[in-house]
């Protein structure tokens, strides 16, 4: 096993030395692709985190025309909680609503003097599960709530949620596109570089077959070369992203809006995942090119 690995590594380094210009170009391209993909993915991840933070306060308030009887409460509860996206519901009576309002007014609560304590409508507070999926369905869900008997109005941060959801949708498309770019560049660029090396060393590869080299003996250095390009390219891309991330954090350290939100870099498992995927993609690119070697 050791001699095999030694020979494979020696051949890999020799291949890379012979075509170092293409190697540098490939590294740059793979690194740039990983940078572009992971940049958008980082924005997406942070947006998701942000949505979780913001949705802590997210709830739908279902205003009712009258205080529901116990049977109707049970019916509301049954009809609303049957949805997986609902975490919990709270009934707020006219009296509770009045007390909350009074509490919110604080020192100004005397403005309520003379106002009947049942002037506010009873309501149901619906707390959706904190996930992007629930955000996306909130409009349809509010439409459904409106169809329930005795419901006057459903209120939630409609505009904000719709804008945020559109942004997340856009990010998803961008990530898909940049992911596609990543796949194309890694596999095709690496395949192209390996093809150049194969072409440059055609004579040697034929000779190796003539003196009894196995196909894997010839192929393995190219696979290692592809995987190395993926590994190094992805590492470079992520390192560049980290530098960019730190720079942005420093530049926007002041604004309150940004400091309130917790922007974080990828966790180690995500970093390892991106590097592994890029490495595998490059190895696949190399593998597809070197299939011809067995025909020598």
């Amino acid at each position, binding site marked *: 096993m050791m001699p095999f690995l030694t020979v494979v590594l020696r051949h890999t380094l020799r291949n890379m030395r012979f075509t170092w210009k293409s190697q540098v170009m490939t590294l740059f391209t793979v690194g740039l692709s990983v940078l572009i993909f992971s940049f958008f993915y980082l924005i997406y991840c942070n947006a998701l985190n942000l949505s979780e933070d913001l949705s802590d306060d997210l709830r739908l308030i279902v205003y009712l025309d009258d205080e529901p009887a116990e049977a109707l409460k049970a019916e509301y509860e049954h009809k609303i909680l049957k949805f997986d996206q609902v975490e919990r519901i709270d009934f707020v009576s006219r009296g509770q609503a009045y007390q909350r309002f009074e509490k919110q007014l604080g020192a100004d609560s005397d403005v309520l003097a003379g106002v009947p304590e049942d002037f506010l409508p009873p309501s149901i507070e619906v707390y959706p599960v904190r996930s992007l999926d629930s955000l996306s369905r909130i409009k349809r869900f509010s439409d459904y709530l409106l169809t329930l008997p005795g419901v006057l109005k459903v209120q939630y941060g409609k505009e904000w949620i719709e804008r945020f959801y559109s942004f997340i949708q856009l990010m998803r498309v961008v990530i898909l596109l940049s992911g596609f770019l990543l796949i194309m560049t890694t596999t095709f660029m690496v395949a192209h570089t390996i093809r150049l090396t194969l072409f440059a060393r055609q004579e040697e590869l034929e000779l190796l077959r003539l*003196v009894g080299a196995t196909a894997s003996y010839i192929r393995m250095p190219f696979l290692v070369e592809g995987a190395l390009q993926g590994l190094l390219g992805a590492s470079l891309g992520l390192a560049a992203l980290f530098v960019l991330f730190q720079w942005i954090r420093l530049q926007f350290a002041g604004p309150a809006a940004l400091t309130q939100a917790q922007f974080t870099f990828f966790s180690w498992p995500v970093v390892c995942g991106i590097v592994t995927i890029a490495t595998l993609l490059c190895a696949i690119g190399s593998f597809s090119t070197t299939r011809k070697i067995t025909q020598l």
Partner: protein
Amino acid sequence: MSQEVTVPDVMIDLIKVSKVYPPDVQALTDISLTVARGEMMFLTGMSGAGKSTLLRLVSRIERADKGMVEVAGFDVAKLPQRDIHLLRRKIGMAYQDFKLLPDRTVADNIALALEVVYQPRPFIEERIRELLDRLDLARKYATPAEELSRGEQQRVSIARALANSPEIILADEPSGNLDAITTGKVMDLFHQHHRQGATIVIATHDRSLYQEGGHRVIELRFGRLYRPRTEVPETAESIEPPEPVPAEEV
């Protein structure tokens, strides 16, 4: 339970083998030839007689259009491409066009054959030095192949063919670019490997190689096998294509 491995007595067996190069160049016609294990044999004939083609069929660089080629127990036609190394590792071939990598050193060129079978580095170095010493090339160890004369390149090609001490050695015109003394040294190496049990087929039109050895000499003419001769034609004009020898007689 141990399985008994049978070692074939016949190392190379060609049965009614024909080869045509496109569009219609008949390189070999109905060749039947048997080479025993440990035999040293010379294949003679004019340029274009089919000697190189025959060697290329044996090492499966080419495939026969008709007939059967069996080498070291392998039916060459049926050997899958992925297993071709099993056959090639049994064969050491010195090519007429040398097949050296011009930008690699002499040592690197010879090392190729040893590296593919994962020989340890110290053994590779020792074997290369031994072969170069025997072939008067010791000083050229680190010289790029492109800087060698044709005679030197030929010897490097022979050294690479012998490096692994293969069971079968095929040499295509091994003395084509060598002087008499160097040819003698090359033949000494071949004889040494022959004594050690290698089966050797040498394609040559140099009579001095086989005149006194007492080894079997087979002549090819226009792609057909003829009876072993004591007289070798002097000129191309004197050759007329006569009746071929029946397969079972060779």
